[in-house]
């Protein structure tokens, strides 16, 4: 017998976690953000239940402000996996016309944090898979694979259950739910390596191409549709860019790059000197910000 490689061990562990939840949760759902981590998670789910299809739906908490390329892949990926796709848009945010240009942090609060809570409550989901990894951010290093949320979706670091061996306690009181992170032990490099090895389809925006951009507050933003509000004097300029993380397009900072293949992207990632989350505007305020958001129910 040859020893397993680290990717084989990670893959086996993730599949084990996916199956445990399918077996023990009453009504699981997979949060699907269309990003590269979601792509890997979905790929693992199809493997875990092959030749059947995963016994849970996909849930996309939409903000209406994602990149167009993300919406295209979303539909295609759900069909390819043979899974039901639930798209939730917070009706309050729809009614108020919440957008990243006028509403700052309320955009994230209403569309994502509140939208997610609404969708989970409405669906009666007791377990939700998420693609978060422990290596993303310091407060996540202590996150359990199975993360318990109160009936109001809050997270209490002191109320989390010890996880021994690969035994997960999935018992819940009515109204409580679990967020499950099958990719907990993967690093960014592992994700890229796996996408490459498995030929997993990802949003083309991860690869460099000429795209219309403006530079604002030190960030390169892509003008993905005509809702982008140009400031006086601002004109979109075509630059060769790619994205390290994808979210709402007016909030996702691009990097200038010519890396138009996966190996080239990995090469750039390894040669670069900044960590992955830097492109997300949300993290910049303070070191403990992600922990605060998590306590409030942000994924």
């Amino acid at each position, binding site marked *: *017998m040859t*020893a*397993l*490689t*680290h*990717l*084989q*061990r*990670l*893959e*086996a*562990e993730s*599949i*084990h976690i996916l*199956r445990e939840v399918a*077996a023990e949760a009453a009504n699981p759902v997979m949060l699907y953000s269309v990003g590269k981590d979601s792509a890997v998670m979905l790929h693992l789910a199809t*493997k*875990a*239940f*092959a*030749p*059947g299809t995963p016994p849970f739906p996909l849930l996309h908490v939409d903000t209406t402000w994602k990149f167009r390329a993300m919406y295209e892949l979303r539909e295609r990926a759900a069909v390819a996996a043979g899974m039901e796709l639930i798209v939730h848009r917070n009706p309050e945010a729809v009614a108020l016309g919440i957008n990243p240009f006028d509403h700052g942090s309320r955009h994230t609060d209403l569309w994502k944090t509140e939208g997610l809570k609404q969708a989970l409550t409405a669906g009666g989901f007791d377990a939700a898979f998420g693609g978060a990894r*422990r*290596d993303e951010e*310091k*407060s*996540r*290093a*202590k996150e359990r694979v199975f993360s318990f949320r109160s009936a109001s979706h809050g997270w209490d*670091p002191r109320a*989390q*259950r*010890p996880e*021994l*061996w*690969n*035994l997960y*306690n999935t*018992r*819940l*009181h009515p109204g409580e739910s679990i967020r499950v992170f099958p990719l907990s*032990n993967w*690093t960014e*490099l*592992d994700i890229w*390596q796996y996408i*490459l*090895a498995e030929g997993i389809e990802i949003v083309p925006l991860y690869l460099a191409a000429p795209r219309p951009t403006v530079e604002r507050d030190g960030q390169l933003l892509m003008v993905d549709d005509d809702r982008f509000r140009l400031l006086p004097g601002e004109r979109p300029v075509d630059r060769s860019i790619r994205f390290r993380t994808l979210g709402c397009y007016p909030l996702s900072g691009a990097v200038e790059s010519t890396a138009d293949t996966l*190996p*080239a992207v*990995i*090469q750039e990632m*390894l*040669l*670069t*000197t*900044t960590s992955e989350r*830097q492109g997300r505007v949300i993290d910049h305020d303070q070191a*403990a910000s992600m*922990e605060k958001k998590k306590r409030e129910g942000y994924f």
Partner: protein
Amino acid sequence: MSAAHAYAPDALVARDIDAYLTRHAAKSMLRFITCGSVDDGKSTLIGRLLYDSRAVFADQLDALAADSARTGTQGTNLDFALLVDGLSAEREQGITIDVAYRFFATPARKFIVADTPGHEQYTRNMVTGASTADLAVILVDARKGVLAQTRRHSHLVQLVGIRHVVLAVNKMDLVGHDQATFDAIVADYRDFARSIGIDRITAIPLSGLTGANIVDPAPAMPWYDGPTLLAHLEAVEVAAPTDRPFRMPVQWVNRPDQHFRGFSGLVAAGGVAVGDEVRIVPAGRTTTVARILGPDGERPRADAGTSITLVLADEIDCARGDVIAAAASPPEVADAFVSTVVWMDAAPLVPGRGYLLKLATQTVVATLQPPRHVVDVTAGGTRPAATLAINDIGVVEVRTDRPLVFERYADGAALGGFILIDRETNATVAAGMIDEPVRRASNIHWQQVDVTRAAHAAQKGQSPRVLWFTGLSGSGKSTIANLVERRLHALGRHTFLLDGDNVRHGLNRDLGFSETDRVENIRRVGEVAHLMADAGLIVLTAFISPFAADRAMVRDMLPAGEFVEIFVDAPLAVAEARDPKGLYAKARAGLIADFTGIDSPYEPPAAPELRIDARESAEAAAERIVEYVIGVWSHDL
């Protein structure tokens, strides 16, 4: 810090990314834990490993520099501990309060570090972190040597079964890099470690603060010619043993349509190949492996650590909780175990109370006896204790309501380690490791040739019990016993109710009510109940059974734990006021002799398994009894 350690990726990345990726794809993985006292510099050591192995990016370094200036303890230098101490609550307290997992990679390996706190009250975190680790790094402060805390951590490492220990003698810079100091600490530790059964130790003198012997050899310690910490972590061989028989706990039955039926799980031990004969445990049926589906599709064989789906040659009953195993050497089955239990909850163990026990993919209701003893992991030795409090480690007999497929923990954590869950709070309250089954006889559950009493019970999917209701005439025994039986029946349990009056119409109609006849009455009922329990039934008996010695006689007929004495404790005044059959009135009138409570004594049980108060409704009492016997959650497990 020196500029030499600034972020610089592997040279191969820039030169030949494809070659780098090929090499990266072939990496193995090592999971290890670090443990030490609060001030041993553990977080600093891990921060240093991350930093020196280039797992820290420039923006994180900026944040680190800012944090170091604000809250650091290293003056103008970077405080590496801040790279690791994550949650704001613990940063304010200045101690690590939980298990944090960190990642870094070298050209040889990917590493997952469980950073486990050294503070005494957090033993549970260390056991948690250790449960998935291949290796333990035990830190010792060179100025202090082996402390009580060091011994405690070593005991835990040994308990959890980690076979590789690194003794990291840290802060060598503070003892002038003195070899004699190092040698004395190592000699001291080796003696102690050997005494508790740890014999594979690698001792390394180092400094988390200066980086000496972490990644690069330390010029200040030319007398040390062993590997650096990282070199050792890269080289240590931790592959799973290959000579174990095949075991796969079934997680999930994959049945997308009527053309496919597969059994999914993670191979816990050994390997399996198409054509192998396998046995479904506990049922015992054998069949052969027709197909194996791995993560990449059809394959001829699979080994430990792989998540697979097996298709079997025969249509055979197999469900989540079963274990598919090598037919020739299946795991044992038992329902009572001597286990080492680490208590992790603020609420202490309640002996006799039902907890959910999860082992591999099996979940059952378990009760624990009072601990045989508690292990003193600091001073060594044991002490008696009536219960287990948080962070206690005890040797306890665990009994389950259904037979469990298991292995001794020493033979494998996958079928030897379990967690206990409180059914009220749903908290994970304990981790346990099976030392041995209590009755070796249960070993034959899977042998189909002998229809043993265990086989009878296993077929019914229940543990036999004799629920012995005792109490005065009119106390409500029959009423409650009837309710309990109806409820158990509805839950799919196989039961039979022996009622005093009915038995006296037939089996015991030759007996009267003299003391001798009453003893014989109970003896016969006890023997019948015993036979029915041998057949696997849950037997309910409703007899006054006034004499303690008679009840003890029946108890002794049955295997330990099967006799459940239920004292229906209605005071004489209450029972007499009810007098459903008018017997008390007749006895008071002198029409019946030797009537219990009137002119014949009732000896109340001193320690019944359950006591039913007269004020409790029959329905509530019945519910409580059902819960005690099988656990109210059992039906939906």
